[in-house]
């Protein structure tokens, strides 16, 4: 059950920022925000509502809809022992504001988001791929990505060949 006290605190912190309270799912209060307001809202929640921790930054691909992606932030307040979830619609060609200046630990999660969905975060210091090879060029968690992959072996093969060249130059194939 979403705690009404949490929602009241969050709404008080977000005074003056356009937002919409969604039906709570799995006991976590949820809000919908606009992309243009996202940075202000995050800053307000960090400073005024006591959410010291960003536990999760991820995205959902709503394939076929516009805007296509949905950015999801999950925040945790250690002082008040509660959480909040923020949904923000992001288009395919838009870039979301980073929250690494507020929560430095979110850097890896934003990198994963970029790797898996192709979402770009403006202001992120080192936005490069986290899991897939850097030259991969595809985003595996997009819904139009084939589940068996697009040439999954090619880049690893080249990487492996380059690596072997350093060790045994005479045996390089």
């Amino acid at each position, binding site marked *: 059950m979403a705690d009404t006290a949490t929602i009241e605190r969050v709404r008080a912190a977000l005074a003056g920022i356009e937002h919409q309270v969604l039906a709570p799912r799995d006991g976590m209060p949820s809000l919908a925000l606009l992309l243009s307001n996202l940075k202000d809202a995050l800053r307000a929640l960090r400073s005024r509502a006591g959410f010291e921790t960003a536990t999760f930054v991820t995205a959902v691909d709503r394939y076929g809809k516009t805007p296509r992606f949905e950015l999801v932030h999950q925040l945790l307040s250690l002082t008040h022992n509660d959480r909040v979830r923020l949904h923000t619609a992001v288009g395919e060609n838009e870039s979301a504001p980073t929250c690494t200046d507020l929560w430095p630990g979110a850097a890896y999660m934003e990198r994963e988001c970029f790797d898996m969905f192709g979402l770009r975060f403006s202001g992120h210091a080192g936005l490069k791929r986290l899991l897939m090879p850097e030259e991969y060029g595809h985003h595996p968690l997009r819904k139009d990505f084939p589940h*068996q992959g697009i040439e999954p072996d090619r880049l690893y093969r080249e990487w492996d060949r380059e690596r072997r060249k350093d060790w045994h130059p005479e045996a390089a194939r």
Partner: protein
Amino acid sequence: MGPLSAPNPPDAGSPALRASDEAADHGFFATRIDALINWGRKNSLWPMPLGLSCCGIELMAMIGPKFDISRFGAEAARFSPRQCDLLVVAGTLTWKMAAAARLVYDQMPEPKWVIAMGVCSSSGGMYDSYAVVQGVDSILPVDVYVPGCPPRPDAVIDAILKLQTKIARERPLAYLLAGPGVSDERGSGELTYQPNAAVPKSVHDLHPHDPRARRG
């Protein structure tokens, strides 16, 4: 430790067998060098446990006292590939791990054998995914496949026994005398993508959420 058996034992009354009987009386025995080498190899398999996921747990149980593969001479698990001759790929092999697995195999000295333990390493298993190698036989020459998710230790012991019968059929001396021109099938070492052929490749698979490709 079974008796050394040649594939074609001579007749009981043949001169060769009589000669070997006489030698046995004096503390000698006669056999073929192939059979002797194979006997030594198959009864002292040193496994390299490449435990990549949950199959590794069953592998540990197999090495442990309850199932005890030391009964079959294969308990000396070494964590250096230089000392091993049996690579047990236990678990899901991802493409990121594939180069490392191939490197482990390349570092093992000849002769060497590979067991693909579990469905993930045999065929990719339920991970029909861009990140998982669809069967380690894409990159390694596999001798025995063990189905199961994960297989029981008994099943892997059975695989080791099957591998022992396979080793007993080998002809190491002929291989040794054939010179450097003849080599076993060891694979090229290239990482090649072999998609799971059992899965149909259709527009629906490529775009599962496209309403135009939805099946009726």
